């Protein structure tokens, strides 16, 4: 399988995921840099993302629409840093249809790093909630099933 490891750091509000692909680095980079390829994997199958604007440059913006059975929603990236084909950093936020980030909704900083490894490509993703409020909002947007097993998980969380 592709996902090699996932680590969550509750204290730093960061998720780190490492995946290994049996493909050259340029090919993996294309999945990020080509919006037509990006939209085939960014959204889940029931909410495919359509990137309407894609300015992959430092300070540039990308906007996308995710349509689903329960209506559409919009998202926007602001590109913070870029170094093809090895690294990309952006802030991902919910947005208005015109691409204006919705500050009442959660935002995340996503860092992507690609390295050549064993003839393939290793992809390392760091995703960080901008703040605990963002984390809470993500839950409040209703994508989360709810608080099953609230008690009993505490040791796993704070160990």
């Amino acid at each position, binding site marked *: *399988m*592709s*996902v090699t490891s*996932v680590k*969550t750091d*509750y*204290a*730093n*509000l*960061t*998720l780190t*995921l490492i*995946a290994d*692909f*049996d*493909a050259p680095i340029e*090919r*993996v980079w294309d*999945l990020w840099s080509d919006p037509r*390829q990006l939209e*085939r*994997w*960014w959204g*889940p*199958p029931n909410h495919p993302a359509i990137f309407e604007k894609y300015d992959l440059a430092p300070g540039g913006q990308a906007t996308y629409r995710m349509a689903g059975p329960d209506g559409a929603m919009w998202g926007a990236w602001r590109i913070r840093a870029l170094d093809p084909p090895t690294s990309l950093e952006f802030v991902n936020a919910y947005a208005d249809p015109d691409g204006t980030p919705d500050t009442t909704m959660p935002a995340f*900083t996503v*860092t992507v790093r690609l390295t050549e490894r064993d003839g393939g490509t290793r*992809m390392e*993703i*760091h*995703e*960080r*909630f*901008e*703040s*605990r*409020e963002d*984390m*809470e909002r*993500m*839950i409040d947007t209703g*994508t*989360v099933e709810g*608080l099953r*097993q*609230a*008690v009993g*998980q*505490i*040791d*796993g*969380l*704070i160990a």
Partner: protein
Amino acid sequence: MVVGELTEDTVDGLFHALADPTRRDILRRCAADEPSVSRLARAYPMSFAAVQKHVAVLERAGLVTKEPRGREQLVRTDTAAVARARQAFDDLESTWRGRVDRMSALLAPATEPEPKNPSSRGAG
């Protein structure tokens, strides 16, 4: 690491709260029990004021609640708040696992990306 870039006002309550081993221990004790601040203070080799400060950090982060009981303050861990933190990350993880699966499908040579049938991707 990213932590170094965080400025004072973006450093968040939960970050502070969970980053300290004493506070993690307080969370554990106050999940199992509902001790008063003074009883809690006796459990640690530090001053009452120091323990009180740790409790205040946890309270600001929304991880514990304090309830007056006579002249005492009882401290209780808000297990739902702690669980919410966990849930948020579980959600994020499954989002990324889904994305990586779809990326793999796109990268697989001569294989149509078919989300309904992810099982037949045997690696030699």
